[in-house]
């Protein structure tokens, strides 16, 4: 059977992708951020997961506002990356795991989480950047990926509780897959940031640290947050934190916190990286 070996939270901001490509690991601005990923890279070398189920949001590469699925999942052999409008370097296609994707789809829909199914899906920085920062030296991606895209662009966005509950079902689906695979779940995005309006540049360090503290074993206080709470406290783009809660739901009640690092600012955001393993 498949084993859900861990969960990782990671920022997915484009500036991180650029800094990784430029290998700014020891640059004074970036070092406190990149150092936070060293234990993650070491854990990957030790655990060698086969598949990443990555919870992320699309920012206008695969989806436009003409059709906005609240939750969608990839079921493709490969996911292409492409130009998002800034002329950034396009990264190699990400390999998928079609059978695992369909196993997850069947189980989630049986549990009444009705996702949009995508046999062709481009993946943007939301999915690519966490892979890039964790495997900066890879010529090709060392894992297969199942992308789970959450709408955090067009309001109303799904609630924190709904994302957590879907995550619980996602975790059950992964653990019931009849194949000896090691699967890790990523919750990407966040933390506090606001890109728009007169409040652009808003970062809430106090909120972020409190969120990371509660994330381990007081997550009910986080799933109780409304979208408006998140916009107010974490900034308009900070609603991405609902994707962390989907990952947290997948891990089950008891977890061990292996690593945690917060650094702000990175570009316009507070950045939190955490590594958790399910505990018995």
């Amino acid at each position: 059977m498949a084993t859900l070996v861990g969960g990782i939270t990671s920022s997915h901001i484009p500036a991180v992708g650029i800094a990784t490509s430029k290998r700014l690991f020891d640059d004074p601005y970036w070092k406190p951020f990149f150092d936070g990923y060293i234990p993650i890279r070491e854990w990957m070398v030790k655990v060698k997961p086969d598949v990443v189920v990555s919870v992320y949001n699309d920012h206008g590469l695969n989806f436009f506002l003409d059709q906005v699925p609240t939750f969608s999942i990839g079921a493709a052999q490969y996911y292409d990356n492409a130009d998002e409008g800034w002329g950034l370097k396009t990264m190699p296609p990400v390999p998928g795991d079609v059978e695992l994707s369909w196993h997850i789809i069947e189980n989630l829909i049986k549990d009444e989480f009705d996702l949009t199914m995508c046999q062709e899906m481009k993946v943007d920085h939301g999915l690519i950047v966490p892979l890039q920062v964790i495997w900066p030296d890879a010529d090709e991606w060392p894992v297969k990926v199942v992308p789970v895209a959450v709408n955090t662009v067009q309001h109303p966005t799904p609630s924190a509780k709904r994302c957590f509950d879907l995550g619980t079902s996602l975790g059950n689906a992964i653990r019931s897959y009849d194949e000896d695979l090691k699967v890790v779940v990523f919750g990407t995005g966040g933390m506090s940031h606001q890109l728009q309006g007169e409040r652009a540049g808003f970062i809430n360090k106090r909120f972020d640290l409190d969120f990371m503290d509660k994330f381990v074993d007081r997550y009910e206080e986080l799933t109780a947050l409304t979208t408006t709470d998140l916009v107010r406290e974490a900034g308009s783009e900070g609603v991405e934190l609902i994707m962390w809660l989907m990952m947290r739901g997948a891990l089950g009640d008891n977890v061990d916190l292996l690593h945690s690092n917060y650094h702000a600012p990175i570009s316009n955001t507070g950045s939190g990286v955490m590594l958790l393993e399910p505990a018995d």
Partner: protein
Amino acid sequence: MSWSKKDYDDIPGTYVFDGRRAAMGWPLNKMCMSLNEEAQREELRQDVEGYCRKFDMSDEQIQAVKDLDALAMLRLGGNIYYMAKLAGAYKLSVQDVGAQMRGITVEEFKDMLLKQGQEEV
């Protein structure tokens, strides 16, 4: 036809991209989405007005794009992720645009970000 009041309306300096804004900003955001292609970015830069007209944008929206006025675009239904593609066409970063919306210099904006990171909590 009317739009209901929202509990996020009172959050200062924040334009939550809901149905009302999406409806208002549709042609503007559609134009921005087209800028994922370099050829289209070049076409925009060559003739801003002509390019925008192809998307049935309003005169105010076109003026906001010509002025690269981010707050005006937000007020006319622009979505920041799509506006970022327009910024990209002119090699502007999220910090350039953020500073413009705050009405401060980019240096002041970056300094403000650093100070928030250094806060004792």
